[in-house]
C-alpha cells in the first residue's frame, strides 16, 4: 500500500501541463512516431537562418504536445553559440479565448515582453509611444486610473485586466484602438527595437516571442466577419499579426489548419502547408498496432513513474498501461489525464475496471456533444480515414477536430482516425 504522500507525488508527476523549463528529464521525443520529423529543428533553423524577423505558425490538437515542442524550441534558441532571448507568451493570461481580436494580442505580447525583461534581465523597457497612446483609452478605464506614472508592463497590465474582465470594456478598448492600430504597432515595435538593441549589447542575437494559447481560441462565429473568431484573427488580421519587428511563433488551432481557410493561411504566412503537431501513431489506418508508438508512450509513463520513485506494478495492474495508451488515441495529454483520473477514481494499482469507468464518462461526454450531422462525417472517417471537407461541412469538421472526436495522424501519409472513446453509433 502506497503512502498518502507517495500518492500525492504520483498525482503531481502526471500533470498534463506542458513540460516547463526544469522538467527536461520528462521529455520524450515523439517526432519519429508522429511523423512530424524535425519540427523543433525546422522552427529554430528558420529563425537562426533568416536575416529578417520571421513569423511562424504551429498547429496541433489540444494535448498533442504542441506547447511542449514550443518549450523545446525555446530551449534550443536560448542555447548554442548564437543565443536568442525568448519570451514564452501565454496569451490566455491576458485575453479571453472566446473573444479575441488583434488589439488584445498586441497588449498581451508587449506586456509579457516587458515583464520578462524586467524579471529576467532587470531591464525596465520604456513605454515610448505607448505613453501617447494611453490618451486614446483614458475614457475606458475611468477617471481614477492614471497611467502617466506607470511603468510599461504595469500600464499594459491595467488594460489586459480590463480586457479579460468585461466584454463591454473589451469592446470599448477595441473601438478606441482600432483606428490607431498602426500607431499601436509602431509603439510596440519601438519597445521591441529598444529591447533588441539592449539584447544585442548583452550578446543576444535577437528576440523571439513564442505566442502560445491562440490555438485555444474559439471556433465560434465572429459577430460580423462571417467566419470563425480564429479564422478572423489568423486570416483577416494577418498583416497585423506579422507586423512585429521580432521573431514570432504563434500556436494556431488545428481545426484552422485543416479547414477551407488552410490554403489562404498557407499563402499569407508563406508556407506550403502550416506545420502541424499530429497525434502519436499507436495503430495504423487498418487498425494494426504500431509497436513503436506504444513503446514511446510507455516510456513517457515510465519516466514519470521513475520521477515519482515508484514501481510500475505499484501503479498499474498487468496490461493496463497498454489499455490506457489505446484509450488515449495517441494524444499525450489525454494519456496523462487518463492516468491522473484513474489515480483519483480507484485504488492503486489501477485496474481495467477503473479505466473503463473513466473511459465511459468521456464517451458520455462525446455522446452529448455530437449531433446527427457530425455522425455522417465520423462514419465516413471511420470507413475511409480521410476527412472530406467542403464549404458546407467545414464548420462541422472544424468542431470535430477541435473536440478531438476526429484525430489526425501523419506518419507515411496523412490520415484521420476516430477517437477510440467515441460512442458506438
Amino acid at each position, binding site marked *: 500500500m502506497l503512502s498518502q504522500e507517495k500518492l500525492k507525488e504520483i498525482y503531481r508527476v502526471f500533470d498534463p501541463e506542458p513540460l516547463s523549463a526544469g522538467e527536461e528529464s520528462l521529455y520524450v521525443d515523439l517526432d519519429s512516431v508522429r511523423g512530424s520529423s524535425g519540427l523543433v529543428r525546422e522552427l529554430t533553423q528558420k529563425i537562426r537562418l533568416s536575416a529578417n524577423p520571421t513569423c511562424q505558425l504551429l498547429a496541433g490538437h489540444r494535448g498533442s504536445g504542441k506547447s511542449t515542442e514550443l518549450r523545446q524550441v525555446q530551449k534550443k534558441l536560448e542555447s548554442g553559440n548564437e543565443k536568442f532571448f525568448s519570451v514564452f507568451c501565454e496569451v490566455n493570461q491576458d485575453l479571453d479565448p472566446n473573444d479575441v481580436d488583434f488589439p488584445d494580442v498586441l497588449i498581451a505580447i508587449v506586456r509579457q515582453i516587458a515583464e520578462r525583461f524586467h524579471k529576467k534581465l532587470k531591464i525596465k523597457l520604456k513605454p515610448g509611444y505607448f505613453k501617447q497612446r494611453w490618451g486614446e483609452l483614458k475614457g475606458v478605464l475611468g477617471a481614477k486610473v492614471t497611467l502617466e506614472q506607470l511603468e510599461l508592463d504595469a500600464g499594459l497590465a491595467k488594460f489586459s485586466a480590463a480586457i479579460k474582465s468585461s466584454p463591454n470594456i473589451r469592446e470599448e478598448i477595441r473601438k478606441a484602438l482600432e483606428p490607431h492600430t498602426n500607431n499601436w504597432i509602431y509603439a510596440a*515595435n519601438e519597445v521591441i527595437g529598444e529591447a533588441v538593441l539592449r539584447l544585442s549589447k548583452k550578446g543576444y542575437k535577437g528576440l523571439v516571442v513564442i505566442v502560445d494559447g491562440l490555438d485555444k481560441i474559439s471556433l465560434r462565429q465572429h459577430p460580423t466577419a462571417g467566419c470563425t473568431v480564429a479564422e478572423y484573427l489568423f486570416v483577416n488580421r494577418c498583416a497585423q499579426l506579422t507586423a512585429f519587428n521580432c521573431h514570432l511563433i504563434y500556436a494556431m488551432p488545428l481545426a484552422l489548419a485543416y479547414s477551407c481557410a488552410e490554403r489562404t493561411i498557407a499563402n499569407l504566412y508563406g508556407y506550403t502547408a502550416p506545420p502541424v503537431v499530429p497525434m502519436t501513431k499507436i495503430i495504423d489506418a487498418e487498425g494494426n498496432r504500431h509497436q513503436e508508438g506504444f513503446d514511446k508512450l510507455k516510456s513517457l509513463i515510465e519516466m514519470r513513474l521513475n520521477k515519482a520513485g515508484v514501481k510500475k506494478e505499484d501503479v498499474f495492474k498487468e496490461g493496463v498501461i497498454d489499455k490506457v495508451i489505446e484509450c488515449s488515441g495517441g494524444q499525450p495529454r489525454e494519456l496523462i489525464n487518463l492516468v491522473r483520473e484513474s489515480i483519483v477514481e480507484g485504488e492503486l494499482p489501477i485496474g481495467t475496471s477503473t479505466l473503463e469507468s473513466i473511459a465511459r464518462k468521456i464517451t458520455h461526454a462525446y455522446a452529448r456533444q455530437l449531433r446527427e450531422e457530425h455522425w455522417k462525417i465520423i462514419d465516413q472517417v471511420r470507413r475511409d480515414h480521410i476527412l472530406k471537407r467542403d464549404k458546407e461541412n467545414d464548420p462541422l469538421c472544424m468542431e470535430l477536430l477541435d473536440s478531438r472526436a476526429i484525430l489526425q495522424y501523419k506518419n507515411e501519409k496523412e490520415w484521420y482516425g476516430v477517437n477510440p472513446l467515441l460512442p458506438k453509433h
Partner: protein
Amino acid sequence: MGKGKKSIRFEHTERQISELAALQKMLKVSEGTFSFSIAICNSPSLQKYLLEEIVTESEAVEVVEINEKVEYIFDFVSSKIPQKNHTTAIFITGIERILPSDKKEHGVLRNLNATRELWKSRYSCPVVFWMPEYAATLFSTQARDIWSWVSHIFEFVSEEATAIAGTRDIYAGDITGAGNLNVVQKRFRIAELEQRIKDASEPLKDELVPHLLVWLNELSYIYYCIGELDAAEQMLRRAIEIEEKLGRPEGMAKQYGNLGLIYQTRGELDKAEQMHRKSLEIFEKLGLPEGMAKQYGNLGLIYKTRGELDKAEQMHKKSLDIAEKLGRLEGMANQYGNLGLIYKTRGELSKAEQMHRKALEIDERLGRLEGMAIDYGNLGVIYKTRGELDKAEQMLRKALEIFEKLGLPEGMAKQYGNLGAIYEERGDIKKAREYWVKARDLFAKIGMPNEVKKVEGWIEGI
C-alpha cells in the same frame, strides 16, 4: 499709398503691398479709358481696408455694392452711376453674394457675359470687380467672354490667413506619434535615436538592421517636422543605402517617397516629383498597389502646389480608385480630403464640401478621430470662405476639441490659427490676436518654425 503705417517683414504682405501699388498705378494710367479688372481678395476685412485706402487717395472712385437681389449686374450698376460723369474708376463689390457656391450654373454670370459691349459703350474708366478666389473661378468659367476682356488681375490672396487644416500627405511609416511630441521631447527623441543608430551601426549588426531602418525613418521624420530638412534628407539617404545594399526595393520605394515629401517642403517640386515617380515606378514593378496609391496621392499634392489642379485631381482620383479597390477606407478618406482641397482652390465649394463630408463619414465610421478633426477643420475653412462664419467657427471648434482630446498639438495650433482668422473677419482684432498668439506659441513649442513664421506674419498684419 506709401503711408508707412505698418512694419512689413513678411513676404506675402510685401507682395500684397506691391499689388496695391500696381492697382493704383493702373487707375492712374488708364484714366479715361475703359478696362475690366479683377481684384481677388478672400478676406472681407482686408478688402474693406484696401477700398478705404484707395478711395481716400482718389475720391472720384465709385464703389457699387451688389446685393442679393441683383440679377443683371450691368443694369444695377447703370442705375447707380450715370453715363457721363467724372468717375475715375468703378469698383464693384459683393458679387459673391449672388454666386452661391452650391449651384452649378449661375444665370447672373450668363447675363453679365452678354453685356460686355454695353459696359464699354457706357463707361470710359476702369471697372474693377472685387471678389474672393472662388468667385473668380466661377467668373472665369461661366462668364468667359467678359473674362477674356479682363486686362488686369490683382491678387490680394495667396497667403490666406487660414492654415488649411490638413492636407494628407502620406509619409511612409506610422510616425504620427513622433510628430506630436513637443519640441523638448523631440530633441530628446532625436538624441535617443541618434545614439541608437550609432550603437546599431558601429559595426552594423544584422539583427538590428530592421530596427535601424525604422529609427532612421523616424529620425528623418522628426527632423522634417522641425524644419531641419538637410538632416532629414541625410537620414533618408542612409536608409536608402542600407535598403539598396540588402536588395529591398520595397523599402527603397518607401524612402524615395518620403524624400519626395522633403523636397516638396523645400519647394523643390521637380525633384520631389522625380522622387515620387521613382517610388511609384518601383511599387508598380513590385505590384504593390497600396504603395502606388500613396505616391499618386503625394504627386497630387505637388501638382496642386504648382497650380496644376486638373493633374492633381487626376492623381488623387487614381489614388482613390486603388484605395477603393483594395477596400482601404483610410486611404479613401485621405484622398476625398485631398480632392476637397483641390475643389476648394478651384472655388467649387459645394463639391469640396461634399468631399470633406465623405471623408468625414468614413472617418466617423472608422472611429478615426484624428481624421475627423482634419475633416471638421477643412469644412470650417470652406464655410469661412463662403462667409458663413458661425458655421465655420462651429466646425473649427469641433476640430479643436478632438485635437485637444487626442493631445495633438499640431492640429490644435492649426485650429487656433483658423479660429483667429474667423475673429479677424468679424473684426474682433483682440480675439484674433489672442488665438494667433496661441497658435504661434504652440507651433513654437512643438518645433515647427515654418508655421511659426507664417502665423507671425498674420499677427504683424493685423
